[in-house]
């Protein structure tokens, strides 16, 4: 590390300003951001969406959208001034060849109608003028490098034949085909499952070592940052507000924004208590920003923050932050808030776990299967799943994309018709199949759903008033117009929305506010049971905390029961009482929350737990990644059964495996006794 400091940076951006012309207005997306990149290091740029992270790095390779341009500052790369480039020819010397980029969605960078081999070969011949046969050999080599088995066969396949993780590997292959010096990864794993994400991060690390690349990660996932980064730059409202070594950022954050980001992580929260959350969203960059951009959202901002823009203060050789808190005059104030923080931390005691001894079963799912027709073929999305939900608990359903977790949630909400088999009992009564109008009405009043994507789950063309009242209209749950309005306003206040919003359209809100509208829409019916289908996966870290807090608050106040569907185990641990793990349509393990984390039994659960990124660089770097392959089971001769191996701890296993798991439990118990 120390050596690096003495080196010259290979890329150095200074006071870069990027402006966009948007609907006749000037948007200043990057407001004087500076950055140095050293050879062989890994830098992570973090911040909420809308902070200008992508735009900033895109300017290094001249890939800004047509209406945007660099209006100030300089970007030096190996003696070249990149901001002076104007033509595509000039950029092509650098783009792809020296600085390559990997995007979030692999499909945006792959051509779906050409084989992946052709696409990689083309990159090689284009940049180096290698003849076709040789380039083809090289392409196959690279495919092998990125961990694609049967590279010769895969070479002739189309992107559609690859899974999401494999596609991302192919994109990485095209990016490294020219041996770039700098690889910029823009949210490379956000669209992937945790297990795949861990593999991709490992792959990038290995490639970086082999090719001595400098890697820049753009991400909002602090767990990923802890895993990969040497240095971290925190970006807010188009400026780098803090940068330093990864340990400095995680252990001694200085800027209030960095602190807030870290505090709002559910991994660091204490069960049963409010998570720290950042209110609002990053500022509107159409307007001139005065002082510290973060001040309006910072409850502990100082008066000066609203008036003067802070300079960069140096904390250590490698650690800089742009906040007035570091000014000598602010010393007293800083000591005061640090003392407050420490005092608050000591006071927090986790809630006691949910008491199941007197719990009543609210929902019973027995041998539920959901079949879909895919052309002539039948496809089992959910395969004989059984579980109970007790009144007042939060049961989380965790699994990768395509595992059938959303399908279970929707089956419970009776979205599917005849393709559901098995039985679902709500308060002892069967709810699958046709129901009378009265019955259906009662169920709509008692069971509600919250959706994943706050953008897609609200009707764009309806006002908030209508969206929230929809359920009220359906069953005429109000006396007169005044009564309806009163109910809408009351629920809006409950979820923390100002009543002035009633006449606005959904697009005028931030993701978190939209999600709150969705929650209000469900709660206005006064339900007892809520299926929350990944309600926070599409949200930024800071907004996640708001929504989690709201869900927890509602649960306490209205005594709700949740079925919480998620793919992110870190969030699940914070909010759930029990966790069910689902793999390819079958439940593989179900256990009380802490027990599952302390003693996972099924190999899939173990793999899933090992892949979850944890926002602490020390923990993250020492973890061992486990993989799971369903071929390890010998289920042909000895089919698995859903067994209660410990009280309240279920597992899908055959007889032979049960014996192994039993031994594991006994060993662990023995160790604890010692």
């Amino acid at each position, binding site marked *: 590390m120390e050596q690096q400091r003495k080196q010259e940076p290979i890329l150095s951006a200074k006071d870069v300003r990027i402006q966009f012309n948007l609907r006749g207005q000037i948007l200043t997306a990057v407001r004087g951001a500076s950055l140095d990149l050293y050879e062989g290091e890994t830098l992570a740029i973090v911040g909420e969406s809308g902070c200008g992270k992508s735009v900033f790095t895109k300017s290094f390779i001249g890939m800004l959208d047509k209406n945007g341009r660099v209006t100030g500052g300089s970007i030096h790369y190996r003696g070249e001034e990149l901001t002076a480039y104007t033509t595509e020819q000039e950029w092509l010397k650098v783009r792809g060849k020296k600085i390559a980029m990997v995007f979030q969605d692999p499909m945006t960078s792959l051509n779906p109608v050409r084989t992946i081999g052709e696409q990689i070969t083309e990159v090689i011949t284009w940049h180096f003028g290698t003849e076709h046969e040789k380039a083809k050999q090289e392409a196959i080599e690279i495919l092998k490098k990125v961990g694609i088995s049967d590279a010769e066969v895969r070479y002739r396949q189309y992107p559609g034949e690859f899974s999401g993780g494999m596609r991302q590997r192919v994109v990485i292959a095209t990016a490294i085909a020219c041996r770039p010096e700098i690889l910029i990864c823009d949210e490379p794993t956000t669209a992937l499952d945790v297990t795949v994400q861990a593999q991709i991060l490992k792959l990038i690390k290995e490639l970086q070592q082999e090719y001595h690349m400098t890697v820049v990660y753009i991400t909002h996932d602090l767990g990923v940052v802890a895993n990969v980064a040497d240095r971290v730059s925190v970006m807010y409202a188009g400026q780098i507000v803090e940068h330093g070594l990864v340990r400095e950022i995680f252990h001694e954050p200085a800027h209030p924004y960095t602190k807030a980001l870290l505090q709002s992580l559910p991994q660091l929260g204490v069960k049963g208590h409010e998570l720290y959350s950042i209110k*609002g969203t990053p500022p509107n960059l159409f307007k001139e920003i005065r002082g510290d951009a973060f001040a309006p959202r910072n409850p502990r901002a100082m008066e000066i923050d609203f008036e003067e823009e802070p300079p960069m203060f140096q904390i250590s050789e490698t650690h800089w932050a742009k906040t007035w808190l570091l000014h000598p005059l602010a010393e007293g104030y800083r000591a005061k808030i640090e003392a407050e923080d420490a005092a608050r931390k000591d006071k927090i005691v986790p809630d006691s776990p949910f008491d199941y001894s007197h719990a009543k079963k609210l929902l019973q799912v027995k041998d539920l299967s959901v079949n879909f027709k895919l052309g002539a073929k039948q496809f089992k999305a959910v395969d004989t799943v059984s579980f109970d939900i007790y009144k007042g608990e939060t049961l989380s359903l965790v699994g990768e994309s395509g595992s059938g977790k959303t399908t279970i949630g929707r089956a419970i909400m009776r979205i599917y018709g005849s393709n559901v088999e098995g039985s679902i009992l709500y308060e002892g009564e069967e709810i699958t199949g046709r129901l009378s109008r009265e019955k259906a009405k009662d169920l709509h009043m008692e*069971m509600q759903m919250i959706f994943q994507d706050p953008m*897609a*789950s609200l*009707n764009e063309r309806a006002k908030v008033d209508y969206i929230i009242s929809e359920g009220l209209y359906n069953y005429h749950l109000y006396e007169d117009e005044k009564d309806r309005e009163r109910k809408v306003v009351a629920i809006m206040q409950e979820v923390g929305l*100002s009543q002035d919003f009633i006449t606005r359209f959904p697009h*005028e809100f931030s993701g978190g506010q939209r999600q709150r509208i969705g929650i209000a829409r469900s709660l206005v019916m006064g339900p007892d049971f809520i299926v929350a289908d990944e309600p926070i996966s599409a949200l930024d870290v800071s907004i996640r905390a708001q929504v989690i807090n709201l869900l927890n608050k509602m649960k306490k106040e209205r005594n709700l029961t949740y079925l919480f569907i998620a793919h992110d185990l870190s969030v699940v641990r914070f909010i759930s009482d029990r966790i069910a793990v689902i793999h390819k349509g079958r439940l593989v393990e179900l256990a009380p929350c802490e027990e599952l984390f302390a003693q996972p039994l099924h190999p899939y659960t173990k793999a899933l737990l090992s892949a979850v990124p944890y926002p602490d660089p020390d923990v993250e770097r020492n973890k061992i990644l486990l993989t799971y392959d369903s071929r390890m089971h010998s289920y042909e001769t000895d089919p698995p059964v859903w067994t209660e191996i410990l009280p309240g701890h279920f597992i899908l296993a055959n007889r032979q495996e049960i014996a192994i798991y039993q031994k594991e439990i006994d060993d662990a118990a023995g160790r604890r006794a010692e």
Partner: protein
Amino acid sequence: MDEKKKMPAALDPLKFRAAVYDQIAGEDVGFSNYSYWRSTLRTFFRSKAVVFLVTAVLAMIVMSIVYPIVSSVDPRAVVVDPRQWNLRPSMDHFFGTDSLGRDIWARAWYGARNSFLLGFAIACSDVGFGTLAGALWGYNKKLDPFFVELYNIITNIPSTVYLVLLAYIMNTSYLTLFFAMASRGWIVEARFFRNRILSIRDSEYNIASRCLGTPMHRIAFRNIVPHIISLIIMEAALCIPYSIGSEVFMGFVGVGLPVDAITLGNIVNQGRQSFTLHPYQMLLPTAILCLITVAFYVIGNKFADASDPRNHV
């Protein structure tokens, strides 16, 4: 980095104390006051060609309605005096007269009125029935095979043969023409709307409505129609030039409206007969016809572009 230089000259130590935290300002989001319709219209009217064409079309519609009311010239008035036949355009007859001494300028506006009416009627029926059928088709999976077959049957019969046949069976009249075109145009529209409805049918906000127990008719009117209304407008705009063009074509192959009906198709057709001697008799009405069809076509396409949120830059 040189800190000193960036520091303001004097800092007030009193400013380094807690500021009042404004709950409302903290929540104030950087939302853009984007409105779908406003952006669509702005994008639409940004093009100068669109502004010109919309004005031209409006002017022509007004003219074709107002002219027959205020003008005293009878478009059917045949003149016996041969000196009044085949006159060149002049101040008395803007477009000249035809071989029977009828004023082409007057005929052109009566014709434009009739053609517009026919076009609007067909556009309304095609898009109207098309939307309804498309909604059924898209929403009800059981109806899918039936509609697919119907679509194949109707679209596989060549339109010329079908139109000629219908005109032969029924008497040539406005109603026949309307029936001939309206009876097959709707299915094409239905398929278009079916595809659009299919893509929004399973979106999360519709599932949310189902979870709330929203009845079908309210889902249709609150969730579906507002999302495809811009497409409906666009399709209707594209339908009008197509119907006017079809009418001209039918006149051309001789199965159109009776000769005494004044439509753009008939005027153009009659002008064609004396084209070599008196080209203006055909060219001037054709110019109006072209302006109408091209204008609607461009307007429809530009509106389709403008209604796509990706173009709202």
